């Protein structure tokens, strides 16, 4: 309906392969980004920051990471929570050991550390497949959480066993700690998400992405036509963990401020992220975001309606949301295995053909 593609033709391969081949999309994305970077910071307040925007950005990052591993490379992982913990503790250790280090670097390094751990736990994927692997990743989940609980070095021997982020500033503005302005933390996370979404897109549309998808779609054939399984799978684990690590680091240092592993990075987090990508759409970057947004907004929405509106007790709403989420997962797997992203694709096709039905 809004699309005017006629005359928007491609005379080079780079134009044909660009991320948004349709001019209209390029404009739309530009506008949205501009809005997110320029307008939102002025509107944002504590409530929006803490209960909607930061969660979305952080979980979006995690979903992106898991989607690379599960959606693109077809390796199911239930260790997301554990890897987020790695990111969190890495950022804690790094920033406490090197207080001067720029926070951007700290976050990135945390991602690096997680990537390394990810590779370690990815090794089994060469021998085992499908849900065997899923179970193997549970080992990562439980072992890591246990580790951070039991080894005092990780939490600097603090009495509570918790880790608490010291205040750190970027360009003189606090982005961690209690008195960091919402817009700053928001922009900080947004920057990471946007940059890494862009990188994810580039990776997935290039050689590496194709080798991942080849492994996902038919691993044997992939190896026979020359895709090295070791490289493909481990790179997927590395990149995925890198993203998840970053999200963990942001989650702890920017969002929570203080964390205790079993609470913050339990198995439930692993499932949360898995659900995000199932509902959002496996093998779709856009889907990762939609999924994250969905899973972040859903509880907020129902809390507001049921607790606020009908005055239900919170725990009951909690159970209700559990049911709802569980139901939705089954619903999507049955009705639209490719998630919300696919629904969007279909709608878009319709818009492009408007006024014709097909």
């Amino acid at each position, binding site marked *: 309906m809004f699309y005017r*593609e006629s005359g928007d033709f*491609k005379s080079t*391969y780079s134009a044909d392969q660009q991320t948004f081949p349709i001019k209209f999309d390029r404009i739309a994305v530009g506008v949205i980004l501009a809005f997110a970077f320029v307008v939102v910071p002025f509107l944002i307040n504590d409530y929006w920051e803490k209960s909607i925007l930061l969660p979305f950005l952080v979980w979006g990052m995690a979903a992106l990471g898991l989607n690379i591993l599960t959606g693109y490379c077809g390796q199911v992982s239930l260790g997301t929570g554990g890897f987020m913990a790695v990111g969190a503790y890495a950022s804690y250790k790094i920033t406490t050991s090197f207080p001067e280090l720029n926070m951007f670097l700290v976050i990135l390094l945390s991602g690096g550390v997680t990537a390394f751990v990810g590779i370690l736990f990815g090794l089994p994927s060469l021998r085992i497949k499908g849900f065997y692997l899923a179970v193997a990743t549970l080992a990562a989940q439980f072992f890591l959480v246990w580790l951070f609980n039991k080894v005092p070095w990780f939490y600097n021997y603090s009495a509570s066993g918790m880790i608490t982020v010291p205040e750190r500033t970027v360009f003189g503005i606090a982005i961690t700690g209690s008195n960091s302005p919402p817009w700053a933390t928001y922009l900080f996370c947004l920057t990471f998400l946007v940059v890494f979404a862009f990188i994810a897109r580039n990776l997935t549309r290039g050689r590496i992405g194709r080798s991942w998808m080849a492994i996902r779609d038919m691993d044997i054939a992939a190896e026979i036509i020359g895709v090295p399984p070791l490289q493909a799978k481990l790179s997927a684990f590395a990149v995925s963990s890198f993203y998840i690590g970053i999200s963990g680091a942001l989650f702890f240092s920017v969002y929570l401020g203080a964390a205790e592993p079993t609470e913050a990075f339990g198995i439930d987090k692993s499932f949360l992220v898995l659900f995000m990508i199932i509902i959002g759409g496996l093998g779709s970057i856009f889907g990762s975001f939609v999924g994250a947004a969905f899973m972040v907004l859903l509880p907020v929405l129902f809390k507001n309606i049921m607790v606020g509106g009908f005055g239900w007790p919170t725990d009951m709403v909690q159970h209700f949301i559990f049911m709802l989420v569980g139901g939705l997962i089954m619903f999507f797997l049955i009705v639209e295995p490719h998630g919300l992203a696919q629904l969007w694709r279909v709608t878009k096709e319709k818009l492009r053909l*408007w006024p*014709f039905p*097909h």
Partner: protein
Amino acid sequence: MQNAESSPLDTFPKLLNHNARRFADRPAIREKEFGIWQTWTWSQVQEEVLAFAAGLDVLGFAPGDKLAIIGRNRPRLYWGITAAQCVGGIPVPVYADSVAEEMQYVLEHAGVRFVLAEDQEQVDKTLEASEHISGVDQIIYDDTRGVRDYEHSYLHDFAAVQKLGRDALAQNPALLDQRIAAGKGSDTGIFLYTSGTTGKPKGVVLTNDNIIITSRNSVEFDHLTEQEETLSYLPIAWVGDHIFSHGQAYVAGFCINCPESEETVATDLREIGPTYYFAPPRVFEGILTNVMIRMEDASPTKQKLFHYFMNVAKRTGATILDGKSVSAMDRFKYWLGNLLIYAPLKNTMGFSRIKLAYTAGEAIGPEIFDFYRSLGINIKQLYGQTEAAVFITMQPNGEVFADTVGVPAPGVEIKITDSGEVIYRGPGVFDSYYKNEQATRETKNDEGWVMTGDAGYFAENGHLKIIDRAKDVGRLTDGSMFAPKYLENKLKFFPQIKEVVTFGDQRDFVTAFINIDLDAVGNWAERNNIPYASYQELASRPEVLKMMEDNIRQTNADLATDSKMSGSQIKRFLVLHKELDPDDGEMTRTRKVRRSTIFEKYGVLVDALYDGSTRCHVKTQVTFEDGRTGTIEADLDIKDVEVFPPVEKTA
């Protein structure tokens, strides 16, 4: 190329050099290949063309030699045209779909020495043809696929020839300059063979001036600029394509786009979104039908929306397009419609960017014509011929009518002979028919007037109206003109009418045989649950006869407003009991009505039309699909139709 600078731009090689300087980095030609629109700028085209020209020279292509160009629209084939002219030779485009025999005739008649063939298929045909004729020395092919194992002594890969040329140019950069400079406007530019429906094709000889001057005039007439994009999908060998995709492109310096293949033309059209577009009426008709069919299975709401705004457009669209004023409300509605329907529609058709579209060749149905104009697509008609390098009349912006073909093109004079035939004179008038003096003299007299063979006249608004082939035009007993084809076309614009045969020459009034369109009327019958088993039965239904009568009355009313035609309103008609059929010799294979045959075969009916009887028995022989013959009998009702007194058109 200093000398090119000074001399006038009267040949294509000179124009090419000129453009290569003017528009060095502007796109000159594109082709959809390997998934993208491969693009060549004017300077690149210059390099390619000169390289090929030099290559031809190396292969011994001498001034005056003919280069046949056979294949669909592809850059290298277009380059071949100019390249041949660079060396002082004459390009002879040949219809790609012509069979070996036809090709053989053209090659022989034009005395072709070199052939530029698109691909294996064309090479094969050429080889087959050149077995029976002498003269074809060298064959150059564009697409190497499958040709690798051929005997290569006289076969050359286009790229290889260019290689030869580049080397030669490296030796002597000025190799071609002399010959290019020597070229004159009066030189023979190209042979275009008219696809002969009757008899052998005639080779129309056109000079550089013919093409370039008419192109220049038309470009100015329609204010075309180097910004235009156009889709080159019509046969290279057809004069239209030579003007639209070559002449005008070189003069205005705009970019032509070659589709990936015949099958993908529609998609390619959509991708390119031309600003300047030519298509024969049937193409526009096809697109419209397609739109309507696709709308059929849209949701009810969408359909409502669509029809509502299409009506808005019908009311105001064309007026707005002609720059006349409409009420603010209508303007708003149109704006809204454009947002919701027209623009998306144009987008899906590939007409989003269209500035100017032309149609010609046959009469176009008014409703089709209006559909496009109401969408804001500036579609116009022109009247032309190969012999005129296309343009005889054109429609100026703001004076576009469905039933006339416009005013004389710039520099063209038009006269109507006493016999009612249209004759013209102008810059585009062809030099001669190649090796056919007699035909030339028959068509072109000494003052350079050319017979079109079409009958027509100037309407009140000074626009030319073509009504029929001159030889078919007759007179009623009262002396007023009777143009059967004109009447028949008018009636055939009604979807329910498939064929019409009108009578009136040397008679008091006009009458008609009608063939209903079985699909359209059948559909209508089912919707109004009118039972019928066969064409014959349906044709004899009173409801159908009524419908036909209405259509004819409508036509008559229309005719009455036309001083020249008000005499040929149809007084009586009948609906034939069988469809006119080539198998029964009633039509040609190309579905043109054979008047004479029908006249004798159905004489009894014709008489009945004039002796005032209201019913008539007829018995005809028919040939069935399996070739057996049988007879069918029927009693046909003959209907009278109301006729209207002549009224002056309120223009």
